[in-house]
C-alpha cells in the first residue's frame, strides 16, 4: 500500500541586507533568521535527527561587506500560514538591517533556492576610483570583448580563466555620485563569478588601479532559468 505523500508547507522568503549588517557573515545571518522565526512564533518544521534543527536553507552566500536587496531563504512549516502573515510577523520581530520584502508559497516539487540559482545581479559602485565619464567610456568596450582572461582562484591555487562567458549582462548605470555598473553574473554550483573579480578586471581595462576597499557592491537579485530566461527566484515558484 502506498503511503500518501506528505504535504509540505514550504515558503520562499525574499529579504534585504542593509548596511547595518554588512559585516555580519552568512553563517551568522542564518542564526539571525533561526531566532527571528522563533520570536515570530511561526510553526517551523524541525529535522528529526539526534540534534533537531530548523528546516531552513539559504541561496548563494553574500560576501562580507556587501549589501543586498534580493536575498532568499527557504523555510518549511508544520502547517500552512498566509504569506502576508509570515511577512508581517517576521518584519515585526526582525533585526534592524533586514527587511522581508516578499514571501511566496512554494510548489511541492520546487527545488530549493540554493540548487535553483543560475545568476546574480549586482551593482558595483566605484566611488572615488572612477567617475561616470570613465565608466561610460569603457563599459561597452569591456563587455564587447571576446574573452576576458584573468587569474581566478580555484580550490588550492590560481588558474588562468576566461570570465567573459560568465558575464551575462553589463550596463553603465553611473550617476553624478560616482561610476557604477550593473552586472548579471553566473552563479550556482557549476559556473559562478564574483562581482569583485569583474570590478577588478574592469579597473584594469580602464587603466585604473583597483583598490578592493574602495569599491562597494549591492546584490539586486538572484535568478533561476525558466524557459531559457532568467527569472527572480521567487517568480512562479508557487507553480513549479
Amino acid at each position, binding site marked *: 500500500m502506498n503511503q500518501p505523500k506528505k504535504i509540505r508547507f514550504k515558503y520562499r522568503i525574499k529579504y534585504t541586507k542593509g548596511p*547595518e*549588517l*554588512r*559585516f*555580519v*557573515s552568512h553563517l*551568522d545571518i542564518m*542564526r*539571525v533568521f*533561526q*531566532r*527571528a*522565526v*522563533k*520570536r515570530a512564533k511561526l510553526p517551523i518544521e*524541525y529535522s528529526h535527527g*539526534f*540534534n*533537531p534543527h530548523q528546516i531552513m536553507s539559504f541561496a548563494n552566500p553574500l560576501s*562580507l*561587506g556587501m549589501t543586498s536587496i534580493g536575498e532568499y531563504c527557504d523555510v518549511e512549516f508544520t502547517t500552512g500560514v498566509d504569506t502576508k502573515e509570515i511577512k508581517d510577523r517576521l518584519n515585526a*520581530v526582525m*533585526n*534592524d*538591517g533586514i527587511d522581508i520584502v516578499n514571501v511566496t508559497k512554494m510548489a511541492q516539487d520546487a527545488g530549493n533556492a540554493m540548487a535553483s540559482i543560475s545568476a546574480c545581479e549586482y551593482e558595483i559602485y566605484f566611488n572615488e576610483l572612477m567617475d561616470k565619464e570613465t565608466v561610460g567610456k569603457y563599459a561597452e568596450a569591456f563587455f564587447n570583448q571576446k574573452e576576458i582572461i584573468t587569474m581566478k582562484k580555484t580550490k588550492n591555487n590560481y588558474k588562468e580563466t576566461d570570465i567573459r562567458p560568465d558575464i551575462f549582462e553589463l550596463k553603465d548605470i553611473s550617476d553624478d555620485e560616482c561610476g557604477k555598473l550593473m552586472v548579471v553574473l553566473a552563479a550556482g554550483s557549476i559556473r559562478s563569478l564574483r562581482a569583485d573579480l569583474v570590478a577588478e578586471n574592469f579597473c584594469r581595462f580602464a587603466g585604473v588601479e583597483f583598490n*578592493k*576597499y*574602495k569599491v*562597494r557592491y549591492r546584490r539586486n537579485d538572484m535568478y533561476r532559468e525558466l524557459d531559457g530566461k532568467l527569472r527572480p527566484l521567487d517568480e512562479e515558484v508557487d507553480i513549479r
Partner: protein
Amino acid sequence: MDKVFIPDEILLQVDKPARYTGNELNMVKKNPEDMDIRFAFCFPDVYEVGMSCLGLQILYFFLNRREDTYCERAFAPWTDMEAAMREHNIPLYTLETFTPLKEFDFVAFTLQYEMCYTNLINMLDMSGIPIYAKDRTEDDPIILCGGSCAYNPEPLADFVDFFYLGEGEVEYDHILDEYKEHKKNGGTRDGFLYKLLEIPGMYVPKFYDVEYNEDGTIKSFTPNTEKAPKTIRKVVITEMDKVFYPEKMLVPLIETVHDRVTLELFRGCIRGCRFCQAGFVYRPVREKNYDTLIKQAHSLIDASGDDEISLVSLSTSDYTCFNDLANGLLDDFAKDKVNISLPSLRIDAFSLDLMQKIQEVRKSSLTFAAEAGTQRLRNVINKNLTEDDILNGCALAFSGSWERVKLYFMIGLPTETEEDLIGIADLSAKVVDKYYEIPREKKPRPVNVVASSSCFVPKPFTPFQWDAQDTYQEFAEKAKIVKSHIARKQIKYNYHDAKLSSLEGVMARGDRKVSAAIYRAWEKGCRFDSWTEEFKFKEWMESFEETGVNPAFYANRKREFDEILPWDHISVGVTKAFMINERKKAEMAITTPNCREECSHCGAASFGGGVCFESAKKNKV
C-alpha cells in the same frame, strides 16, 4: 560631537568585524543630544567574552531604563583591530553611537577576573584618557570599576577614580541623580568624588593614604579626609523578587561564549567552600521565587528567540525549588525545542530523572567539580562532598547512558600532600571502574573520563587569604606527580598553565605598589593576558624586576592573621574572626555546615535578608 568612522579597509581586514559594529537585537537606541548622562559600560576583554556577561546585560538595561541616561558599550578590541585603530588614529568608541569614550560622563569597567587589568589600561589609553587618576582633568570622564575583582581594588587604585562595591541595582540611581545635580550646578570632578563618600559601597582611593613597614607589609591605611568611611561595606539587594531584571537581553549577531539567555536563580552560595571567593563576597544567599523565574524565562525567550536557557547561579541545584523549576521550564519549553542548560550542578544533588529529560532535548557533557583527590583535603576546603557522592553520581550518569565525564580538581591547595595528588589519579580510576560495573549491554561505547586540574590561587575574602601560593615550578612538579599515577587509558589528564596562575596570585592579593608593574607590563605590550597565545610571561617578569615589585611577596608568602591586608578597609559582611576560625578548622580538616543546615554566624546576616532569615520566616509561619 564627532562620531567615529571606521573605514571598510579596516573592517574588511580584521577578524570578526561584527565585533566592532554593534546594532545587535535589542540594542537600546536613544538620541544622545537629549541625555543628561552618558555612561560607557566597558568590558576589558574581547566582545564575545564580554557579551556573555550577565552583569553587563542586567546593568545595561537597568541604566537605560532611566530616561536621562544613555548606557552604551565598549569592549577591548582584539590585537588586529587595536593595531588598525592606532594606525588610523581612531579612538575607542561605543557600539551604540560610535562616540569616543573620552566624551562620556562615566567610563565604567566590570572586573570579572584579575588577568584583564592590562586591557583596562589599554582601553583608557586608546580613548585618549589619562591612565593615572591623578592626571585627569575636568575634560575627562570619571572612571569607575565594579565586579568581583573590585573587592580587592588596590592594584588598580591609582588608575580608577572610584570603585563600586556590591550590586549595581542598589546605588546607581543614587549616584546618577547626584551626578546630574552636581553637573547642573557646575561642580568639579573632585567635588563629585567627595560627594560619593556619602553613598554606601563607594570606595574613592584618593581619599585614603597607605603607609608601609620596612618589610613591605602595610603599616597603616587611613582616610585622609574626615568624611571618608574607615571601612567601606558592600551594598546588596535584599528583595530579589522586586529587583529589576531585564525582560530582554542583547542578542549578539556573532557567536559568543555563552550563546543563550541566562536566568539568575539566586545570588550568593550556601556552601562556603573555603577556596571560593564568590562564595563569601556574594553572601548572603538570596533567591528569586518560582513564579518570578518562570515569568522571566518566558519574556527572555520571547524577546530573543534563543534555543537555550541557562540557569545560572553559584550552585544552581541548591535553589530550594530546583526540581520544580527545572521540570516547569522543561514542560514549558521542550515543544519549542528550547534546551535548558545547568552549568553548575552539584553532584550530590544529581537527579537522573532531570538529566535524562534534558538529554531528550539535547545532549551536553557532564562535569563534576570534585576539587580535591582525597576526603581529607575535600574537608580542608569544606567541599562537602564524599567519594560515595561522586561515584554514585557517576554511576547514575553511566546508567543514564552518559559515557563522558569531566572531573575538575585543584592542585596546590593548603595542607596538600603527595597522597592528595595521587588521590586525583585514584578517584579518576574509580570513576572508570564504576563504568565497568554496569551491565555490558548498557554501555555501547567506551567510557571517557577527562580529569582537569587547575592551580589554586588564594583569594581575598576567603579563609585561605593568608596562605602562600605554590610557585609555578612547584605546580609543574605536582602536575607531574598526578600524571605519573594515571595508568588507565580511558582517562585523559589536563592541567592548566601554572605561570598564568602565579601571576593571577599576585594580582589577586596585590596592594597599591603592584600598579606600577601592571603599568609597565602594559607598556611592554601585555594585553589579553588570560589568552594563552597573547600571554607574555617574560615581559611580566621584567616588569616586576624593573618596578621593584617582588611577585613572591604577594603570591608565595604566608601572612600572619594580624597583618593588615590590602583589602582590610573593605567589608563584604563576613567578619575576619569568622575567616580566621574557618582557616583554623581547615587545618584540622573540620567542615562547616552549609547555610541551610545551620547558621555559622559569618556576619552576613547583618544585611537583613536572604537565607539568614529563611528559617526565621518559616518559624513565624
